[in-house]
């Protein structure tokens, strides 16, 4: 059984390493500041005891006021999981650091979020539309997008 690590406990450890990086933490997830995302991701991947070497899924949710990116991490060695979250309050030009350098598996998923949600990933090597074509107006998964065919 994959053990879901408590976000609160990990938040304590991260707080020592990266002061001021944690916004919020509860039993199931851990919300961090986007400027610390890359450092925390590297830390979680390389620190023995955590070893989160497997990025299951990256996705973004549009909560109207802000975008929330959700990273599902798993450690194959220890068989435990963690949900990492990042918020992005800028609706006009949302930008989040890319984690492709840490987990290659984020490559296509981040491109997909860029395409459908319009969030830019800084440091992504090949950030362009993936499922829609160049010149498509808007980002369909945003809540304000009315995607009915006319």
């Amino acid at each position: 059984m994959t053990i879901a690590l408590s976000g609160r406990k990990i938040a304590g450890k991260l707080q020592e390493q990266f002061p001021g990086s944690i916004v919020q933490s509860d039993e199931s997830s851990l919300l961090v500041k986007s400027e610390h995302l890359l450092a925390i991701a590297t830390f979680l991947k390389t620190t023995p005891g955590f070893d989160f070497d497997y990025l299951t899924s990256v996705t973004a949710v549009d909560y109207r006021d802000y975008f929330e990116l959700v990273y599902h991490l798993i450690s194959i060695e220890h068989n435990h999981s963690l949900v990492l979250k990042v918020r992005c309050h800028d609706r006009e030009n949302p930008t989040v650091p890319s984690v492709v350098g840490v987990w290659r598996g984020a490559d296509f998923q981040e491109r997909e979020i860029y395409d459908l949600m319009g969030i830019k990933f800084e440091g992504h090597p090949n950030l362009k539309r993936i499922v829609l074509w160049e010149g498509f107006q808007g980002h369909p998964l945003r809540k304000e997008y009315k995607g009915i065919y006319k």
Partner: protein
Amino acid sequence: MPIKTEPFAINFGPFHPSTHGVFRMRTTLDGEVIIDLEPVFGYLHRGIEKLAEGRTYTQNIPFTDRLDYLASMSNNLAYVLAVEKLAGVPVPERAEYLRVIMAELQRIASHLIAVGSLLNDCGAFMTPILYMIREREKILDLFEMVSGQRLTYNYMRIGGVSQDIPDEFLPALEKFVERMPSYIDEYDRLLAENEILLARLKGVGILSKGQAINISASGPVLRGSGVEWDIRKVDPYSVYDRFEFDIPTGTLGDSYDRYRVRIEEMRQSLRIIEQAMKQLPSGAVKTDVPWLMLPPRGEAYAHIESPKGELGFYIVSDNSAKPYRFHIRAPSLINLTALRDMSVGWKIADLIAIFGSIDICMGEVDR
């Protein structure tokens, strides 16, 4: 010393006989050798994630059928598991067993197509895939018995399955489970003793263990690289913790290992089905849920081991009748991350074989 020629660009797909749908690869070739490759997606992007936000939880089940259309039952299962996790709906024992039986049958059906089309891509002029489809038809018959459909079953429901199995189902299933191993052995012999195929698959398209984990590969691609990671074992959902089965793994991570893993998985699936048939309890098959269910505010991520890999559904609810966010973690898409690394330096024919050995389904890649 290979002779270098002037590189040229060539487009594989979207209408190409062996791209398993409408996949496209922009490749740069040096003679026959691939020196660069960029996958292009989106030719089947139907916007399921957006459409699902406009339908109720139950109405979304048919969408999941059309994701990985070779494994509709597995997709149904993953989705209903996510909604059940979100809303806390209990599932009757009998329904859990039926789900396991269906998911495992679906795995066999999907792997049959995967292996068949891999051989077809290697140029075996339709013969293997036609034999595989012959066996798959028997599974489709079983599914038709329970759901009335041949491809898009829409069988699982939130809190169970749509209907109980008919009386003829179990005898037919028993007959199938009895006969299938000999067919699998036959197909195994077809490949394991064919020099041409061994030469074309062994050592081709190697994906190392570290690479496989780093690109978040899952399913047979991950296990072919030697990582013993099967969600049925490491994070058992439904009633998988009650069955005995092994996780087949490869050693080298080449196309041949991925093929072997699929063949072995079919055998393991049969083992699970046999046990599930023996343990199948009687009783109800569906918990009553409100017609218009309103799950509490929150989010849930449920993942299963689908034939292609880890299929996950991430659902956010805002306490309305429709999901607020409906995200699909598609194994086919993520497994393709490695395609470039695996195929650069190989020949055109290898690219096709490597691509076939990853086994993708375009409905799931593009969604």
